[in-house]
């Protein structure tokens, strides 16, 4: 029953060969020197390349019909149980009655919902997005920014799979900054402030153009699900059902009310998709209109799969001071019915809380007193398809201020005025409300506040004070705000508030975000216990693509593992470990973070997504292969250039000596004051320069000739990319002819070379473990040799592969072997 497939999935092929096979047109100028030095036997960045290159040139419909194509499915670690046959009976009946049967319905139009709907539509599924307010699609309900450390990598990964948010931020961003510039490219955090209004309108424009997608306004009261009719004689009541057997299958949703549909502009975009009069009934607008009419009478909409992305709306409750009322966002109703029916299906629900700060009137803030923070001179776009951003020359400024003791004592004396803080519901430890910060870290007399513009002045007159989310009564909020530097006359437009909401225990999901209980039901975003736009978008694209693939019934899944990217870490942590506080990504959570960087998200994910039809933009693939080729070229010229110690010393020292004559400037480095000599993007302290020189001298002692590539890998030319780049340019001719982006990516790979080799082997072991599938319907008690504690742990997680079983905290190797043994017997 469980065959172990250990066929190698990593393809160690020189990218050049791939390029030839795929008949991509390569510039003949760049012929590679394959002569290898002692290091170059392994090409650590090549295993994600597609071993079946001819395939991707086929149109998607043909691809889907090729049964033999099993590249990524081989290492998938959750088996979709396709109950399509079962629901198809119901759906066929409904179809014959003239109802529209959707492939995918996405509930919710937030960051997760948009990405899910768009992803499902991209893989070719007929998709309906239903949301309570068409105007709110693309709303940034909390902070006006995207990205950050860890989160920025998520955005890049979503973009690498042709997701929307990265592209839209590039079009609506008003300030772009790369965080962690001084800490190395592995942890760069691209971040942008966005203009809410432009973001929303750009987002709406983008989804309107998405083929296969229709959008309806309405409120969902329930999901339609039915017992899995595998054995017609056995009468299983809902209560008796258990996780092990997917007894239920989804076939649509129930709605309270539906009011209108969004007029899509997608049908005319692609000439192949042009609707003539006779196939007009397949057009997105026609389907939406028909569904709307039927649903107004019938209160039901039918579909093969459903993605729930309700955010904080599931059983949502808003807290301001001692006031407390049901709502998802301020001024918007919560969805209560859905929560009840999820409970009925047996899902374990939990409750979490989060908060948002008050909004301030920009004109009432005295910015002159405050320290500003500016965007990067040359903004780096999120999207791999963009070379620059729309408002590159028109970036806005953020400002920094701090709370003070006066504020703290005011809030401390009013703790009894907030119900949010008194309750035991779990809030995050990393983004606590101002009340909790003051309570938990009473020794700190001041906390940072970032004043972030919500957009260009013509679009928004609001400022978002990041860092002071709180749930105090309105009057106290106004009072303490005015105690802060620069906010003496501030007008509070909207008070901060707390939200409490239901979430589903994400251990109810597989790695494809498919629920284990109900076949065809997917979940993404805050409902899974995560927090943040980027986390929501990342889950959305996975859930949406998988719902689409599920409904198309082609036996494929999109799974991203921990080594593929931070999305994989996010999902793996959620579905195997569960959540104890709203989950957000940190780079520290990824054991492969030196590999899963923001710069190479395209290398890791684009091909994979393209193979499943998720990337519809062919130019992404072309760009990717061009980039691989260019990086290889940059590497090859470093490898070709050998240099003997004396000329190395001469060239570098000449440069250093010149630097030493420059007057150092006092600079801020990670909060420390240092006097640095700055050349371009690189800063040295005098001491560091001296040090670098010593290192280079020492290399010369053995008199050995070395390639520049070796010098880079050994860290002899410095530690930051800019620094290495500067020196390589002195040693290698033609170096500066290569575009900076390519040089940067090439040097990043080489800087971490030794670590990457090590991680490569770790990744191989991890993936081998992940390939070995275990059935998830075992009664672990029967194994006998397991301790009670181990049985409990297994019962909660229900590992579907050996790798997951191994990662369960507290499970001994002996227990894992017993499990394997039992599975065999």
């Amino acid at each position, binding site marked *: 029953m*469980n065959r*172990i497939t*250990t066929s190698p999935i990593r393809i160690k092929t020189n990218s050049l060969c791939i390029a030839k096979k795929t008949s991509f047109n390569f510039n003949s100028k760049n012929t590679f020197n394959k002569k290898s030095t002692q290091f170059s036997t392994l090409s650590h960045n090549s295993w994600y390349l597609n071993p079946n290159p001819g395939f991707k040139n086929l149109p998607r419909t043909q691809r889907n019909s090729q049964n033999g194509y099993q590249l990524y499915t081989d290492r998938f670690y959750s088996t979709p149980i396709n109950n399509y046959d079962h629901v198809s009976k119901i759906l066929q009946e409904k179809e014959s009655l003239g109802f529209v049967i959707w492939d995918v319905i996405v509930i919710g139009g937030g960051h997760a919902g948009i990405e899910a709907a768009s992803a499902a539509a991209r893989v070719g599924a007929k998709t309906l997005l239903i949301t309570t307010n068409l105007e709110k699609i693309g709303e940034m309900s909390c902070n006006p920014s995207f990205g950050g*450390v*860890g989160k920025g990598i998520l955005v890049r990964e979503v973009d690498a799979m042709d997701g929307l948010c990265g592209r839209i931020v590039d079009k609506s961003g008003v300030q772009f900054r790369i965080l*962690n510039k001084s*800490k*190395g490219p592995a942890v760069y*955090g691209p971040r942008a402030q966005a203009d809410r209004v432009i973001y929303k309108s750009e987002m709406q424009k983008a989804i309107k153009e998405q083929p296969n997608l229709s959008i309806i306004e309405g409120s969902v009261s329930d999901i339609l699900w039915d017992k899995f009719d595998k054995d017609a004689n056995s009468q299983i009541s809902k209560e008796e059902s258990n996780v092990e057997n997917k007894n239920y299958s989804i076939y649509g949703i129930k709605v309270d009310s539906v009011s209108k549909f969004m007029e899509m502009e997608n049908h005319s975009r692609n000439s192949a998709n042009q609707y003539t009069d006779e196939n007009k009934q397949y057009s997105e607008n026609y389907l939406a209109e028909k569904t709307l009419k039927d649903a107004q009478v019938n209160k039901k909409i039918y579909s093969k799969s459903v993605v729930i992305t309700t955010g904080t709306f599931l059983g949502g409750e808003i807290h301001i001071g001692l006031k407390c009322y049901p709502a998802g966002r301020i001024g918007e109703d919560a969805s209560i019915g859905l929560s009840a029916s999820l409970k009925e299906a047996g899902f374990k629900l939990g409750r979490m809380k989060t908060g948002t700060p008050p909004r301030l009137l920009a004109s009432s803030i005295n910015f002159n007193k405050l320290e500003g923070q500016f965007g990067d001179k040359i903004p780096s776009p999120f999207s791999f398809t963009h070379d620059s951003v729309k408002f590159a020359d028109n970036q806005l400024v953020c400002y920094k201020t701090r709370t003070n003791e006066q504020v703290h004592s005011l809030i401390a004396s009013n703790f009894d005025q907030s119900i949010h803080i008194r309750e035991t519901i779990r809030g995050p430890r*990393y*983004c606590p*409300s101002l009340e*909790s*910060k003051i309570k*938990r870290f009473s020794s*700190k007399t*001041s*906390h*940072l506040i*970032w004043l972030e513009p919500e957009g260009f002045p013509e679009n928004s007159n609001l400022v978002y004070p*990041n*860092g002071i989310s709180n749930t105090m009564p309105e009057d106290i909020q106004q009072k303490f705000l005015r105690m802060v530097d620069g906010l003496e006359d501030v007008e509070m437009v909207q008070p901060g508030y707390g939200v409490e909401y239901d979430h589903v225990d994400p251990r109810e999901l597989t790695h494809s975000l498919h629920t284990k209980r109900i076949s065809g039901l997917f979940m993404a975003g805050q409902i899974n216990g995560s927090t943040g736009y980027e986390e929501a978008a990342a889950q959305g694209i996975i859930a949406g693509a998988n719902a689409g693939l599920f409904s198309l019934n082609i036996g494929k899944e999109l799974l991203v593992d921990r080594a593929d990217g931070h999305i994989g870490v996010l999902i793996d942590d959620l579905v195997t*470990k569960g959540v104890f506080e709203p989950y957000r990504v*940190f780079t*520290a*959570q990824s*054991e492969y973070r*030196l590999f899963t960087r923001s710069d190479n998200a395209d290398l890791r994910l684009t091909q994979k997504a393209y193979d499943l039809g998720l990337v519809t933009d062919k130019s992404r693939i072309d760009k990717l292969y061009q980039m691989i080729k260019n990086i290889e070229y940059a590497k090859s010229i470093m490898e070709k250039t050998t240099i003997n110690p004396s000329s190395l010393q001469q060239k570098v020292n000449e440069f250093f000596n010149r630097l030493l004559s420059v007057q150092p400037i006092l600079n801020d480095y*990670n*909060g*420390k004051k*240092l006097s640095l000599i700055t050349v371009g993007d690189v800063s040295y302290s005098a*001491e*560091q320069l001296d*040090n670098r020189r*010593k*290192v280079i*001298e*020492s290399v010369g002692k053995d008199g050995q000739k070395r390639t520049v590539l070796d010098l880079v890998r*050994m860290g*002899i030319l410095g*530690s*930051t990319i800019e620094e290495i780049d500067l020196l390589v340019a002195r040693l290698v001719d033609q170096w500066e002819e290569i575009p900076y982006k390519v040089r940067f990516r090439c040097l990043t790979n080489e800087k971490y070379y*030794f*670590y990457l*080799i*090590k991680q490569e*082997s770790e990744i191989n*072991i991890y993936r081998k473990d992940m390939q070995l599938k275990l059935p998830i319907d075992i009664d672990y008690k029967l194994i006998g040799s397991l301790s009670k504690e181990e049985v409990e742990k297994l019962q909660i997680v229900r590992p579907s592969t050996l790798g997951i079983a191994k990662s369960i*905290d507290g499970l*001994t*190797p*002996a227990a894992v*072997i*017993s499990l*394997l*043994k039992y*599975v*065999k*017997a």
Partner: protein
Amino acid sequence: MNNIWKSSFQTTERIFKCKFHQTRFGLAANDNIFALSTSPGKAGIAVIRISGTQARNVLDLMTARNQNIKKPSFIPRKATLTKIINPIDKFDVLDIGIVLWFPGPSSYTGEDMVELHVHGGNAVVGNILESLSTLEHYRMAEPGEFSQRAFYNNKLDLTEIEGISDLINAETKAQRKQALNQAQGVLRNLYEQWRSQIIKAMANIEAIIDFSEEESLETNMYEIACEIVQKITNEMKLHTSDDRGELVRNAKRKVAIVSPTPGTTRDVLETSINLAGFQAIVSDTAGIRKAKNDIEKQGIQLAIQKALDADIRILVLDSSDLDKSFTKWWETSKKLFEPIYPKLQNNGNALGFHEFLLDKNTFLVFNKADKIVNPNMYEMLMSLESKINGQKNLHYKNFDDVLNKCWSISCTTESGFQNWVDGISQVVKKKLEDSAMEPAYLTRERHRQLLNVAIKHLEIFMDMDETRVVECAEELRMAANNIGKVTGRVDTQDVLDEIFSQFCIGK
């Protein structure tokens, strides 16, 4: 001036570090493993297996064969008699034995493998294992690692795994016990303390990476991490370079207050002693009798639990009044514990607790031999015989058998001690040689190697500066993982917990 641009590293060291990097990363991935495959202890023949991409190096560097061009080199799967030499000193012949060469993939693990069949005995085997560890990219195998490699290389399917799973099971169980053995003492606490210190340093580094740009954190976090690492590196170096750890464990010191007054021992006192080369934990428990007060009752409860968990039990009786002593124990335990542990299953027969305790792993010691004029074991046993024979399912049916399980000693005059210790040592040795348990000296050696690797990583950390903060974090992670392999604890969540408890993160 802050020391963030540390100029501490000497340039020559730098080159060395690069070499270490190559060693570590170039092949650490597929490093070569070796292990003693036969059971340890005195035996006619011992087999040492080596597996890995560079297993052939053993043939080249550790046999005299290849130096002699006239003799043909090794033929795959054919036994070859040759000298086995020290790779560092060619004239140091370690043994003469049979060498077998299995080029991959036609081998047990699917990798290149070498088998050395050498003379048994700790000295020879120990020397060869030590020599192997000096080869580049060689390390001692983890328990079950050969099978694991075979498994990954598609050499075993689950049917075969089933066959060996019992073995691995035993290995890992034994391994866990072994780890625990050391644990009870100082070592585990010490190692865990180091690991938690490293995690503390990691929390500082990770907080710099994930939060320093947007939060108002302390500015000296990197320096704090360096201080912590410097401190534990020194401690670890000191620890691995001398044998103090050993001394602590083997010291013959007074561990318990002893007195003839019943009820003196209440808590469970444990000490670790070396019996026939194996580490053993000895627990002294409260005597089982009708307890006078609550503390003693709890002590007796503990004693019962310990006795149930123990591998070997020793029942100490008073030989001056053997009959009374035994009867009292028998009756009391029956009365006290039958209601608590009604029936414990043993081979399908329902047994009372006191009966369960008297199985083949229970041994008798008759104390206070000085109190009786002529300590005659035979007579003493005779006096018990009627009682013992009255019970079913006991292992004392055969009188000779019983004789081997009894010792007469005197705590006052220390007479009979040597006999007893020798006897128990034999029992322990027999017991452990039966199982696939790794002898203590091998475990210790592996642990020492792991600690040394951890130290290397910490040293590399110390040589970096804040511009390489991500690599710093990587080194710390690897160091913590290596210590975790010794103590059996590896989890990453600790770091985040540490960050959130130390720093106010929240923007």
